[in-house]
């Protein structure tokens, strides 16, 4: 990989993107974002058959139940794709974010960010664990950090 932008973004605990946009919340997606704001990374769990769904939806496609519950997720996952938006810069991001597709142990996939990593250290198949980033409006949203060894 080349380009100065790829080499910036040293690992740090400082919020690299304090101007990150707040989540857009729809009626059906809001429970996910509200849980995150309370520091919980959850999936929608069907009250009828127990299956997990993401993105959330009002009706379970397996059993038609409208009973939506919450399942805390392990927060452990694998990077199955990642990119860095360089031009135009992502709105609200002072540093180019690592945008990733993470598949969690429970089998669901999430569009997210991997933080606390230098872009040149990003790998397909990398193990990551959930963390929380703060948006400009003070919302907490799930992101991921490289998994600690062991």
């Amino acid at each position, binding site marked *: 990989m080349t380009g100065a932008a790829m080499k910036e973004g040293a690992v740090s605990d400082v919020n690299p993107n304090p101007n990150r946009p707040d989540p857009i919340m729809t009626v059906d997606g809001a429970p996910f974002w509200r849980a995150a704001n309370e520091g919980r990374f959850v999936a929608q769990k069907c009250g009828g058959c127990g299956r997990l769904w993401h993105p959330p939806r009002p009706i379970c496609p397996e059993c038609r139940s409208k009973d939506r519950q919450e399942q805390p997720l392990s927060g452990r996952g694998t990077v199955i794709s990642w990119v860095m938006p360089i031009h135009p810069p992502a709105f609200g991001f002072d540093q180019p974010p690592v*945008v990733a597709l993470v598949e969690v142990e429970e089998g669901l996939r999430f569009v997210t960010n991997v933080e606390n990593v230098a872009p040149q250290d990003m790998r397909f198949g990398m193990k990551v664990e959930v963390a929380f980033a703060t948006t400009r409006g003070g919302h907490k949203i799930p992101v991921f950090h490289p998994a600690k060894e062991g």
Partner: protein
Amino acid sequence: MVDRNSQAAIVGIGQTEFSRNSGRSEQQLMAEAVLAALDDAGIDPKDVDGCLTFDLDHSDEVDLMRNLGCREIKYTLRTPQGGASSVTTLVHAKKAVESGFCDVMVVWRAMNERSAYRFGQPNLQIQPNGKSSTFIEWCMAYGAQTPAVWEALSCGPYMNRYGVTSEDLGRIAVLLRQNAATNPNAWFYGKPITLEDHQNSKWIVAPWLHLLDCCQESDGGVALVITRMDRARDTKSRPARILGAEYAFLNNHEIISDYYEGDLTDLEVSRRVTERLTKAAGISPRETNVAMIYDNFTPQILRQTEGFGFCGRGEAKDYIRDGHMDLDGRTPLSPNGGLMGEAYIHGMNNITEGVRQLRGLAANQVKNVETVFCASGVAGAILGL
């Protein structure tokens, strides 16, 4: 299968100029493109009784009728999925005229996406709603805010598994720009690029998309006129029959943000369309003479070339490097320069090029064209004389 007399055909194609600033309304672009297509067909605008476009277009059916003076529309439709719907329009237009739902269907796409709103840049007005944009809820807060980012994230697993390099993508860009360079209608007429130019162009989305892996944003309008072959006898231009047109929409699959289901290195939707299309048209995409494949970003060419059966999985980069899609290759790819080289009218200008190739009137005319394949990921059509 319908008999030849009742078969749908594209009998008119029309367009405005392609530019970075049209200087007039999208409504006007729509009307100019549709009128040009009707003039090409030799059909009176008052006879239009069906019209069709796809989502994200801002022009209105009421205004289309006001500009054309057509009396009564019997069939209208707006299909989902943005540009992936470009070839889907042929599926519906074919069925609409063959069933007699309407007799003269116009299809249009007309936008000022460069001068009015920069289609490729983060759009904070976009909302998660029924305009193929519900995925925005899950992307915006993470900086996945543009088509290039959504595409790059979805192509990553394919690129990684098959070891596709940036040079592999660059060869596609070079090919398309080479075709555009000799097409006076193309925005990039007279402006070919080298692989070095591609490699030196700035990152749009690392580590996959350089600037020259992305189509440009264009102002402009394109339109088609579709009717049955029995009616097409009176038309001015040679009809391009729609031998087959199929599309598929699969559960838990999104379009450009297709992240949630199954093996992301496989374009299952294209394979399914290919099966049905081959049956309907009587020939497969691979057996056609020209391939017009939706090229918003270079990785799409690789994935669709495989999905529609031109070569095996993981083989597309070699298939292209070996020249099979060159202008003098087995199945030339987008002789107009495609969306990358000619203009980005959301796939519609690739369909008009397919028709020109059949008529024998294209700028970069391929010899002895009898059939053309048009594809936009979820949809495929085979046109023939």
